[in-house]
């Protein structure tokens, strides 16, 4: 009886088919040629790039002739471009694009630190990259939880501000930095609760609510900042120990070359962030809650017909996501041992949204995306601080955003959001 009638089957993309990617091939080809030509034109044979392990083995140095390094990388880019133009298996295209991008990044990094007196402090820069990826991790994870449940949370920036401000305030009042962390989580959750209520019960346009919440948070924290400035002891810097592992007797791990400073010499926020990535992933893809959450974000009517309370689940998920983004706000103050200042989040909440998309609404993808952005931010900061880089500082501050464009356009391609993302669910609908 049961014969599979495949007549109407949607045809599949053959992943092993050889295709020509002309657009990408030409683009990478041009970049490779420009890079090589620029190296020949502007780099002298005496230019050198020095890599050091600055924190563990201070004697270790590697010196590379910059011009040769950049030209080799340019050749790698050109090879990838030629591969794309000549025909490439569909599934290998992303690999080729990734190799080309990495080569471009290595070339630019070597070039940018080639000035006399500058060295590439490998351990500091990588450790800093991990640390600076935190706001993206927390913000994007919060976004993932919201959007997987079908609610767009564009108000992450606002939740960051609320968390940053409340964290310092509570820490000052209680004199305890950990109480401050809890306070920032509560502040984040309270502000998303408003979004959750408007999005589920009143079915308001979620983008509008998010924008308003951002402005509200900016105005509220700026106002409170001005008020509290008049009194001492409400906005003093509080911080956490710089090495969280020291406290539990694992401080010696920090002496391992490279991975020691990067992974084992960080403060509490880093470990919370990294663990949270895996926790959220596990919850989303391996538990009943996750299955229901994803179904509510993809096809709420289907979930409803199976007895899942769509709007209740959305409400509590969005509120819980606020705990994460609020905690991410504490990064700006408590993790950096800084007092609160007006608009100190500087738009990173929006970059976190981009990271969420780059990470394809998946916590593991978010981690990868956040690390790329963290590295870009760290490089910009490092070159800017060094001061004598060939690239001007304000130009470097564009770097993370330029990376956003390149990564989103070049590597990710068409990302697919949860189908019911941002669509209010009214049980009366068919």
């Amino acid at each position, binding site marked *: 009886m049961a014969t*599979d009638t495949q*007549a109407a089957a949607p045809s599949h993309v053959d992943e092993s088919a050889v295709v020509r990617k002309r657009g990408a091939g030409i683009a990478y080809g041009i970049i490779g040629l420009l890079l090589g030509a620029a190296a020949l034109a502007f780099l002298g044979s005496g230019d050198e790039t020095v890599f050091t392990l600055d924190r563990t083995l201070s004697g270790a140095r590697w010196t590379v002739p910059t011009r040769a390094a950049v030209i080799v990388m340019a050749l790698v880019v050109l090879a990838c471009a030629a591969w794309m133009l000549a025909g490439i298996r569909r599934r290998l295209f992303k690999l080729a694009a990734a190799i080309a991008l990495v080569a471009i990044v290595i070339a630019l990094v070597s070039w940018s630190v080639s000035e006399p007196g500058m060295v590439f402090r490998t351990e500091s820069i990588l450790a800093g990259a991990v640390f600076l990826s935190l706001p993206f991790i927390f913000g994007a994870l919060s976004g993932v939880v919201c959007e997987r449940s079908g609610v767009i949370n564009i108000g992450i920036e606002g939740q960051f501000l609320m968390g940053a401000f409340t964290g310092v305030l509570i820490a000052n009042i209680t004199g305890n930095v950990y109480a401050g962390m809890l306070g920032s989580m509560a502040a984040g959750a309270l502000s998303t609760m408003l979004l959750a209520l408007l999005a589920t019960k009143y079915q308001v346009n979620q983008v509008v609510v998010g924008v308003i919440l951002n402005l509200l948070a900016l105005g509220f924290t700026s106002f409170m900042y001005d008020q509290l400035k008049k009194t001492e002891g409400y906005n003093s810097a509080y911080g956490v120990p710089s090495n969280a592992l020291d406290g539990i007797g694992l401080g010696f791990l920090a002496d391992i070359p490279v991975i020691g400073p990067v992974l084992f010499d960080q403060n509490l926020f880093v470990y919370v962030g990294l663990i949270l990535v895996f926790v959220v992933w596990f919850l989303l893809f391996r538990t*009943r809650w996750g299955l229901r959450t994803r179904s509510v974000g*993809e096809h709420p009517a289907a979930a409803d017909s199976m*007895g899942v309370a769509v709007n209740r689940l959305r409400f509590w998920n969005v509120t819980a996501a606020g705990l994460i983004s609020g905690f991410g706000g504490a990064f700006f103050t408590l993790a950096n041992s800084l007092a609160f200042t007006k608009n100190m989040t500087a738009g990173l909440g929006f970059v976190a949204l981009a990271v969420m998309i780059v990470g394809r609404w998946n916590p593991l993808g978010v981690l990868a995306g956040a690390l790329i952005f963290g590295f870009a931010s760290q490089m910009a900061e490092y070159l800017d601080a060094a001061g004598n880089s060939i690239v001007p500082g304000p130009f470097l501050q564009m770097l993370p955003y330029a990376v956003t464009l390149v990564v989103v356009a070049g590597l990710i391609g068409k990302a697919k959001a949860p189908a019911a993302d941002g669509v209010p669910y009214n049980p009366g609908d068919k």
Partner: protein
Amino acid sequence: MRLELKGLTKKFGSFTADDDIDLVVEPGQIHAVLGENGAGKSTLMNMLYGILKPTSGEILIDGEPVAFSGPGDAIAAGIGMVHQHFKLVGPFSVADNVQLGREHTRGAGVLSARAARQAVRDVSEQYGLRLDPDAICEDLPVGVQQRVEIVKALSGPSTELLILDEPTAVLTPAEISELLDIMRSLAESGTSILFISHKLKEVQAVADTVTVIRRGKVVAELEPTASETEMASAMVGREVTLTVDKAPAEPGEPRLEIEGLMVVDEAGVKALDGLDLTVRAGEIVGLAGVEGNGQTELARAVLGLVRPDAGTIAIDGRRADRTSPAQRIERGLGYIPEDRARDGLITEFTVAENIVLNQYREAPYAKNGVVDAAAVRKRAEDSIAEFDIRTQGPAEPAASLSGGNQQKVVIAREFSRPRRVLVAAQPTRGVDVGATEFIHSRLVTERDTGTAVLLISSELDEIYALADRIAVIYNGRIVGEVGPETPREVIGRLMVGAEAPSTEAESADIEAFDAESPASGGTASGGTAAEGPDEETNGGDRDH
């Protein structure tokens, strides 16, 4: 399970959707509920499944009155439902879709993938519904997706009654015959089935009892042996003729000439592979074939929505394959798309705007680039009267109309200007019996005025009713052109490629047809009633 409805009534404000419905489903019985668009069938089922609360009346299960506050209660009471619009989460696996809402866990809310997979296998084996638990639902053909829905409905704690709401609306003929087999075997194993439909042949084929509903009231209880005319008349409330009167065709000069047409889709598969077809003035050429053999691409290529990779299309003897759709429409091409939600209507626009959608730039609807609202409205009012479009008025959004009336809007638009060639793809899909009758007679009138008509239909009955010449498409080629008197068995064999040259075995979906014997190919198409009225759906707007 014995299900009994007593005086079930549902009112929405002053509108009564269901009025005093009595119905009994005996254990192991297939009970068909027949009715036209908006007769109240879906409302009735939604009350049964706990989605809507009855205004009055009661539902009795094995003699005990029950009250459902949501689908969860209905599932717990042993009712499973397969919705007309599938409720499957596309990116989920089959197992995840089946377990949603009643997950298999290892405690602490952690899912057990193995238990979920095993549960699907158990149910599939028990009822003979083959499924791969790990397949991703959105990649599955519609017929298999429906099987997932059935397994989902049967996976309730103790499902004894299955509600199938318009289950065949989106299926291909072969899938339909398979579904009917599944229904029979389910009933044999003791499951009661409530089968909502308006396809008379299917009802005749499987039902044990037929209840006809019209305007929210039970108007007839029939035996499945009742004739199609009897059922159709009960549904519509007047005499319905199921055959089309037409004189022999008088073909004239070729109006649409297609030669060697090739269309390669995104995945690199040849959807059309050197197709040749000529349609002459004053004839209806019926294009028969199992869906997915290139019909969609052919229609879209003729209009110019896809650019052919090779071959030519000529309208009135002039090459047209490099021209835009607008230019082809200008030259007298009319087009009734198979998926009206995607290609036929802008559902957010009003009925009037949709009716002038291909003429809004021309006088009298536009003057100096400004649309003349009064002229548009006048024209819409005329069309609404002429084509009997049931709408509150020309300013209503097209989305507010039922499927059949939306189709009439498309027909009104295409028939409102002089045409040389008409491509009608699935013109009566999702259209009820009265409207089908009307559309068929308009197509014949169209032919008689000299237009060349290409009728693309997956329903053989429709082809037989209208076509003067039948072309059979298989794997993107015409594999035979035959006269209208050719027996079904012959066309059925052509449709599954049985007589096609075996050299063109490159296409991937041949294996699917190998399992189909030529004879069952014939009965499969016979089992789908073309004349049956359809309701508010078509293949394109499943909502997931």
